[in-house]
């Protein structure tokens, strides 16, 4: 049977950063991803990142992805693609499917970095071809270089909705409007300002009443919401759209963690039920770690830091680092994570993550 020191499930920013950090310490690392290409969400993020120099701020997401891949290669990390993990069993045995066939790999440590999936939204017409996740549209334009439509309505004003609207225009589409149910804009003002300057209206307290069309999207009717989130008749607006993109939040992809038997806690602001973990990213199961969006949805920079943290912690527990060296590295990472979780946008996540750690302490 195939064996390895550390098996990382998911080759997104969290998984790759974890692999690089652990391999740098000397560990043997195997990364498994169900996709044919590594990188997770990183390769569709063509904007310059926020943060500080240590977070690779000012560098475009896909270039960070390339750098991470080069590092994994240099350090001899094994990356198995088309490897969909479907089960984690006793003694850290991982079952996965490649090319339709079953395989297993046994690891001393497992890191789950499976990311998150996009939420859907129900409204009349929501299943029509042309209604899609904002991330799906982002994949199409930035990875596959194909426009899913010409005239877009974006739903949701978080950073994903704002960024993908901007990128759709960069790819040559028109964004007719961005619609947000809440009374204010959710994402960063600087992202909003980019699309406002390009002439995109942002309608707050507004939702989709109906998407028109028989075989595909042929129009959108939006309607205002009152303070009680009820539709206000008579405020309908019609848009001549051919595509509707939904950016209404992400949910951590936690099936594997459930299956493995990790304990969970419910924290709505992190995307719902999330596995409990300690300061080292270890779950309630010994030797099983998590990193990135699976631990609660944040963004790519924090996913990379969490990945590094899990990598260092795994390396330490396999004795590739002594306690002092590991602590030195972990302190740096904790500081950088804290920096990302400050300010009006970060504080909520900071408290949410504290709650998650508290849940661990209460169990102990």
């Amino acid at each position, binding site marked *: 049977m195939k064996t390895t020191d550390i098996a990382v499930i998911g080759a997104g920013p969290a998984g790759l950063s974890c692999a690089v950090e652990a391999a740098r310490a000397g560990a043997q690392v195997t990364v498994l991803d169900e996709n044919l290409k590594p990188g997770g969400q990183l390769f569709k993020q063509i*904007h*310059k*990142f*926020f*943060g*500080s*120099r240590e977070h690779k*701020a*000012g*560098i*475009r997401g896909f*270039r960070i992805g390339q750098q991470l891949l080069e590092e994994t290669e240099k350090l001899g990390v094994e990356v198995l693609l088309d490897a969909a993990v479907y089960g984690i069993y006793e003694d850290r045995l991982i079952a996965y499917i490649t090319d339709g066939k079953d395989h297993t790999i046994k690891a001393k440590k497992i890191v789950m970095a499976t990311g998150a999936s996009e939420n859907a939204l129900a409204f009349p017409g929501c299943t029509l071809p042309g209604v899609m996740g904002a991330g799906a549209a982002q994949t199409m334009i930035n990875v596959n270089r194909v426009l899913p439509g010409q005239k877009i309505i974006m739903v949701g004003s978080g950073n994903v909705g704002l960024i993908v609207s901007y990128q759709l*225009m*960069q790819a*040559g589409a028109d964004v007719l409007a961005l619609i947000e149910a809440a*009374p*204010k*804009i959710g994402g*960063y*003002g*600087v*992202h*909003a*300002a*980019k*699309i*406002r*300057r*390009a*002439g*995109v209206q*942002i309608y*707050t307290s507004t939702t989709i009443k109906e998407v028109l069309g028989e075989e595909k999207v042929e129009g959108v009717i939006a309607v205002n919401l009152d303070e009680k989130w009820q539709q206000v008749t008579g405020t309908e607006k019609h848009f001549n759209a051919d595509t509707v993109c939904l950016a209404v939040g992400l949910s951590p992809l936690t099936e594997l963690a459930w299956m493995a038997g990790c304990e969970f806690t419910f924290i709505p602001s992190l995307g719902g039920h999330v596995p409990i973990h300690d300061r080292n990213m270890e779950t309630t199961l010994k030797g099983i770690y998590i990193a990135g969006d699976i631990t609660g949805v944040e963004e790519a920079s924090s996913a990379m830091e969490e990945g590094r943290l899990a990598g260092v912690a795994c390396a330490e527990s396999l004795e590739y680092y002594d306690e002092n060296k590991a602590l030195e590295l972990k302190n740096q990472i904790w500081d950088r994570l804290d*920096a*990302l*979780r*400050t*300010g*009006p*946008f*970060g504080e909520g996540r900071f408290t949410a993550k504290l709650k998650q750690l508290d849940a661990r302490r209460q169990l102990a």
Partner: protein
Amino acid sequence: MTQKTGVIYQGFPSEDELSRIPGMPSEERIKKGSVACIECAQEIPCNPCEEACPYGAITVGKPITNLPKLDQDKCIGCGLCIAACPGLAIFVVNGSKEKAEVSFPFEYYPLPNKGDEMDCVDREGNMVVKGKVLRIVKPPKYDATAVITVEVPMEHLKTVRSIKRLGRSDR
């Protein structure tokens, strides 16, 4: 319903917000020559602007959620911070000549040509006035972000912040 103003409602900072953030230069400074306007009004974890300025004119400090602060006397208006800002929130204005000059980041295809008369728009994308493209800078270091400078009548120095996207010839 009256539209509430401010960045969280409208998606761009209001006059009032701009007058209170530490990244904006004074009227007198603008009249003296090129200077940066850092229209970054929310405490987000971000500081590439600080590092980009070779003259030490921008300070974010710690925590990195501090609003960027402009030292208008150190700023020479070189424009290097414009492309470094992932929020595309920095502009350079020059009010020392007969006409105003506004430099802004631009990441759409295609680019205009030097000398073109373009539709200049405000922070809401509304057409304000025609303006001539004086310069387009896009060195490899800017990593695909172009910095465009347009010339507009002086009264539009504080409103013009971009140009209308051009139609694409590839479709």
